[in-house]
């Protein structure tokens, strides 16, 4: 931390202005009300309200290197008493040097005012001390607030990062197994699947860089994901889409849909032996994109444990991005499961 007066010009100007005002007031009072000769008034004013403030600005260093929390009160008092004495010593010497050319030998003016000057010097030290402690406190408070703000932003960033979906290893290894099988029976299809899987993975890596993408792109990726899963599940997986064409330009958080489809497959397709339809409908409603994903499921085989971690992460991510609750709605109809996402848009789409 550098000196607040050199660091902050506004504070320096206020500091100077303050002493100028007090100094001028002092000059006027001495000259006109106490009828002190102008030379003396001037000398007194300069010594108290120009020299002391100049010297006093160095008091900042005495608090800068003495943290209140780290040092005992007794040591602090001793330290400041010594510092104050040294400062007063220097100050009084300077006053003597300043007065000497103007005051004749044997003049009592200096001698008489010496005790009050020294006392005043100590009092001024105390005033400066309080002032600098206040400045110091304010500065560190401001810094803390700033750091806290940075910290909150950092946490938000980290949270968002953690909430983004990762590719499920189960999906990856099962897909690789399908490819392994296809290399024997249908090499062309195996190649196609390798390419699809690569494209899908490349897209999912993209979300480390970009937060928002065009809905059309996200949709393409979902279709790719479903095509990969369709190789595994065959007829069991049936995907239907009903998309309003003018929704495609909407902006949507990257990879926000994939976990929803993964869920639908996990609880719908995986748990039953019948065909499962995953139906996706999209509409634009003023300033929001509304995406609804419905899948059938066999509720006799499992008890849904409410919101799993996948859905919870999406809800949290939406909350952080849009700063708005309830953008995800879940409806469990016992034979089908419905998730609706409402994605606010900056531009009006309809």
């Amino acid at each position, binding site marked *: 931390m550098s000196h607040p007066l050199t660091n902050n010009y506004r504070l320096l100007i206020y500091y100077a202005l303050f002493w100028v005002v007090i100094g001028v007031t002092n000059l006027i009072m001495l000259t006109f009300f106490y009828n002190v000769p102008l030379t003396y008034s001037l000398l007194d004013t300069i010594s108290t309200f120009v020299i002391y403030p100049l010297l006093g600005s160095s008091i900042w260093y005495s608090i800068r290197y003495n943290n209140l929390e780290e040092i005992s009160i007794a040591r602090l008092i001793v330290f400041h008493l010594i510092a104050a004495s040294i400062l007063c010593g220097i100050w009084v010497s300077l006053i003597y040097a300043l007065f000497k050319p103007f005051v004749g030998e044997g003049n009592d003016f200096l001698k008489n005012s010496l005790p009050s000057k020294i006392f005043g010097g100590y009092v001024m030290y105390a005033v400066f001390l309080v002032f600098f402690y206040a400045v110091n406190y304010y500065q560190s408070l401001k810094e803390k607030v700033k750091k806290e703000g940075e910290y909150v932003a950092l946490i938000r960033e980290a949270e968002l990062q953690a909430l983004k979906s990762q590719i499920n290893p189960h999906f*990856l*290894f099962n897909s690789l*197994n399908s490819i392994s099988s296809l290399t024997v029976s249908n090499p062309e299809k195996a190649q196609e699947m390798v390419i699809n899987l690569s494209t899908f993975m490349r897209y999912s890596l993209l979300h480390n860089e970009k937060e928002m993408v065009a809905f059309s792109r996200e949709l393409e990726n979902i279709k790719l994901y479903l095509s990969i899963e369709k*190789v595994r599940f065959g007829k069991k997986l049936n995907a239907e889409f009903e998309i309003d064409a003018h929704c495609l330009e909407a902006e949507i958080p990257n990879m926000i849909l994939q976990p929803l489809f993964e869920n639908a497959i996990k609880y719908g397709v995986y748990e039953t*032996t019948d065909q499962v339809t995953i139906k996706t409908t999209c509409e634009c409603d003023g300033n929001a994109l509304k995406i609804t994903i419905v899948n059938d499921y066999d509720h006799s085989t*499992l008890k849904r444990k409410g919101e799993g971690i996948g859905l919870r992460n999406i809800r949290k991510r939406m909350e952080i991005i849009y700063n708005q609750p309830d953008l995800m709605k879940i409806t469990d109809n016992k034979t089908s499961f419905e998730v609706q996402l409402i994605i606010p848009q900056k531009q009006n789409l309809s």
Partner: protein
Amino acid sequence: MSEKLQTLIIEDEELARNLLRSYLKDQPDIEIIGECENGFDGVKAINDKKPDLVFLDIQMPKITGFEMIELLDFKPQIIFTTAYDQFALKAFELNAVDYLLKPFSKDRMLSAIEKVKHRIQSGEDTAEKLEELSNYRPGEEFIDRVVVKDRHKIHIITVDQIRYIESLDDYVMIYTNDGRHMKQKTMKYFETNLDPKNFIRIHRSYIVHVDHIAEIQQYEKESYIVILKDKDKTKLKVSKTGYKKIKETLHF
């Protein structure tokens, strides 16, 4: 060994079945006697056909490979297959069973079959090992369903359907709203694997679902009985420690 190993494939994905079949095609000592797409069919096929060897996928529709083991009357040699399941892997490692991680190579599969042959020759009993495997639950979570088999039908009972469980020597009787089912598991298993927020072991012989308790009555000086909400107002004995547990769980 002169006879061929009678082998069953239980796997829900067609491509995974195709791969196994193509790996096994040229093995002179393996004969594939059937393929199943889900756990229900798998249990029936094993109990009916009594194969020597089963390739068993862990994650399947209806019931998992682990749950299937609980329902087998006949315990064959099993080679488990899974793509990625940390809990299953831990269970496999701890119980030293054979498993294949998908995708696996033909060599890897053949060496697993070699081990199985070796075990059959040495007459090692695998039933106990499988029993332990099915009792082992590496996850922290409580169970959310129980699979049972009455004669030839398999039922999946979600835990919220369970009213109470009664101990019957080596078996337990699970009472639900629409009947009762016998299962070869210990009371200890249910006591540790059912969520204690919902299930209380009220007595050496009983575990009860708290939602089905209608009232608790003093029976003698220091003994109590629980009366359930059903038509018959079933009465169950409560032990001293059981009473304490009820008090703790229901906060009275």
